[in-house]
């Protein structure tokens, strides 16, 4: 029975330790599904809105269960809306079982027992959905994600290709695509870091690939670290150690980004947020300051849609070529 996971930073290592392999259903867009569209406020996180539309349209009926990660931005609201739609009879009869996973990304005497109880509860709910733990049939995605991250940082793979390969892993974690470095070409300057709100497609990444080397993608850094670990101890430790977790309780993002910009020789930071962002924008001044301290350029592209089309990036392209391209 297939299990879906919704949220950025899915803990694949932890799922593996629990005996499950989970397909990431976070990224795909969806047209509005009219029967529920009127209930979804325009400021709803776009990925949250998309999963709700897909649930109601029956697109996710192949899943036995859909796990919502509470600590992903907006995901708890997506979960409660989904439950409310279910209560009102607005979901298909064979919609997946809706499960909320409150995994707290911190190690403490208070959080540890709670996380253990959540793991037990989620396992019980999956059992109710007739999803039984089983030995993994395929490698967990963590290794593939780590390889992609390194290859991207080395300029062996473009930012867009890396994004698309990660999305392929998300679609089917049972497939670990081998990263084939292209024919040897020197990575071009500037070395770019793309930071801010995660995206649903690689349109902006492709644009940045034309400008320089998209070496660092915050979305990828989060995904890789959250997926790490091959047993309960290491997988749980990976959550608390992930400085890119959206709701990371510890104030570590600014310092980590600062170190990353320096250690990865980033020459240009590209910052952007979602139209209705209420989270990442709080970090913008820190990122700008870190870029300045490191001698890197900082460009704020402002509010961008999460599934940008090339046509709507025209003004972005003009600006990037004018201000960034060397």
């Amino acid at each position: 029975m297939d299990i879906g996971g919704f949220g950025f930073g899915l803990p694949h290592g932890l799922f593996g330790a629990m005996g499950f392999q989970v397909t990431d259903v976070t990224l795909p867009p969806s047209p509005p599904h009219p029967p529920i569209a009127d209930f979804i406020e325009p400021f709803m996180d776009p990925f949250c809105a998309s999963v709700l539309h897909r649930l109601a349209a029956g697109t996710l009926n192949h899943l036995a269960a859909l796990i919502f990660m509470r600590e992903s931005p907006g995901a708890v609201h997506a979960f409660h809306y989904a439950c409310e739609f279910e209560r009102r009879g607005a979901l298909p009869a064979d919609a997946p079982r809706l499960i909320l996973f409150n995994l707290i990304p911190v190690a403490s005497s208070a959080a540890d027992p709670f996380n253990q109880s959540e793991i037990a509860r989620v396992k019980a709910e999956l059992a109710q959905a007739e999803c039984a733990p089983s030995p993994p049939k395929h490698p967990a995605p963590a290794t593939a994600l780590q390889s992609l991250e390194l290859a991207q940082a080395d300029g062996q793979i473009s930012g867009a290709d890396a994004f698309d390969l990660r999305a392929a892993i998300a679609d089917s974690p049972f497939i670990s695509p081998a990263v084939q470095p292209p024919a040897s070409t020197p990575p071009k300057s500037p070395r770019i870091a793309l930071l801010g709100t995660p995206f649903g497609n690689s349109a902006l990444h492709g644009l940045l690939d034309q400008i320089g080397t998209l070496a660092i993608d915050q979305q990828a850094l989060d995904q890789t670290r959250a997926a790490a670990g091959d047993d309960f101890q290491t997988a749980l430790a990976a959550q608390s150690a992930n400085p890119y977790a959206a709701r990371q309780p510890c104030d570590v993002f600014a310092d980590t980004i600062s170190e990353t910009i320096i250690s990865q020789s980033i020459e240009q930071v590209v910052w952007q947020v979602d139209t209705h962002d209420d989270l990442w924008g709080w970090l913008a001044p820190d990122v700008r300051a870190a870029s300045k301290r490191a001698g890197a350029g900082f460009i704020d592209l402002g509010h961008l849609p999460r599934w940008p089309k090339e046509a709507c990036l025209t003004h972005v392209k003009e600006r990037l070529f004018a201000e960034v391209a060397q």
Partner: protein
Amino acid sequence: MTSHGHLSVSAQALAFQRDWAKSLRGDLANGTPYAFVNADTPHEVFHAMGMPVVVNQWWSSVIAAKQQSTHYLDRAAEMGFHDALAKYSALPLIAALDGDTDRQPWGGLPDPAILCARQSADDHQRIFQHWSRHTGAPLALFHAPAPPRNAPEWWARARDDWEAFYGTARLDLMQAQIQDLIAQVETLTGRDFDPKAFGAYMERIEEQELIYEDVSHMIAAAERLPVRISEQIPNVMIPQWHRGSDWAVAHAHRFRAEVADRVAQGSAVCPNERVRMMWIGAGLWFDTKFYTAFEREFGAVFAWSMYLPFAADGYVRHAKGDYLRALAARVVSMNEQLHQPPWANEWLVKQARDYRIDLAVVLVPENDRPSGYGTRFIVEDLRAAGVEVVEITADMVDARKWNSHSAMAAVTDGIKRAVQH
């Protein structure tokens, strides 16, 4: 007691708050350690241990009342914080980062000894991490896991059946964090936590909240509105900030007595009352005259705001001897009950029925998503219950975007529709 002008207790509440604020200001100036906290955190810990508390949302309303919100929101943009970020919870931070003490109320706040927030919204930890860095104060950050399902009729189950309703694991986590907070406050204050005194204090809070429940029932049942929400709110919220104190409990008694007297006399704020309205959302702090703007022409009164009825439903958690656990049950889903489906929509429909509401005016915060979620369910369910609904998009502290004319026009249209029913 005056005639259907103001209640005498209203002036008493405002005077108390002024005196308290003056005293707090003096304490802060003398270097008394204080806590800067979000509204949905366990204030009871600080109160019980004699540590002054400044509530973020209260300070935000003070800044807004001083007509400084526009300036600070402009400063936020200059600092690099985009305009779509939450304002109500962040205005004080921006004022602090701005650093111009001449402009700030009271000349600005000194650095707190401790900060406290709950991760009930995605941005709370980011805002408070800024506070912590700016002030050097430690941040007591409470996690906010959600229940596996938002079971219905929370207001009925939460008073007694809270262990099962909120879940043992969540309550264990919340209680453990409360105990950690107690240890921190003990260190900061040099005082030991007294469980027995705390229990007595929690019982006093319960007494206070049940008085408010009486008042809510009286107002709901009265033939015509005896007390406007513009007076209900300070008579509830000021004591709520000081809940369980001798003054707060006594004030609640006085408030109930005056309201009861008004009801007994058939006193009405609007003798030609024809339409009863409910205001859904936080208070419109920069335009409170809005609440009385429809009385003369339409006989339309705002009879309900959340503050009075939420006092009992949100706060009463029968302790059964375990007061820290009861406090955990009070805090664990405090905000969520007002904003998540089906909790919010069910409760508001019940309230609308109790108060015989004809028209609901729903404030949809433009840039405060947590307060705006669930609105569509609320609107749908109120309409299904026969309540006319008007939605107004605005921000609780951002006066720049408040269009009073358009809001009044929308409510006027709603009143006319309600009258036709």
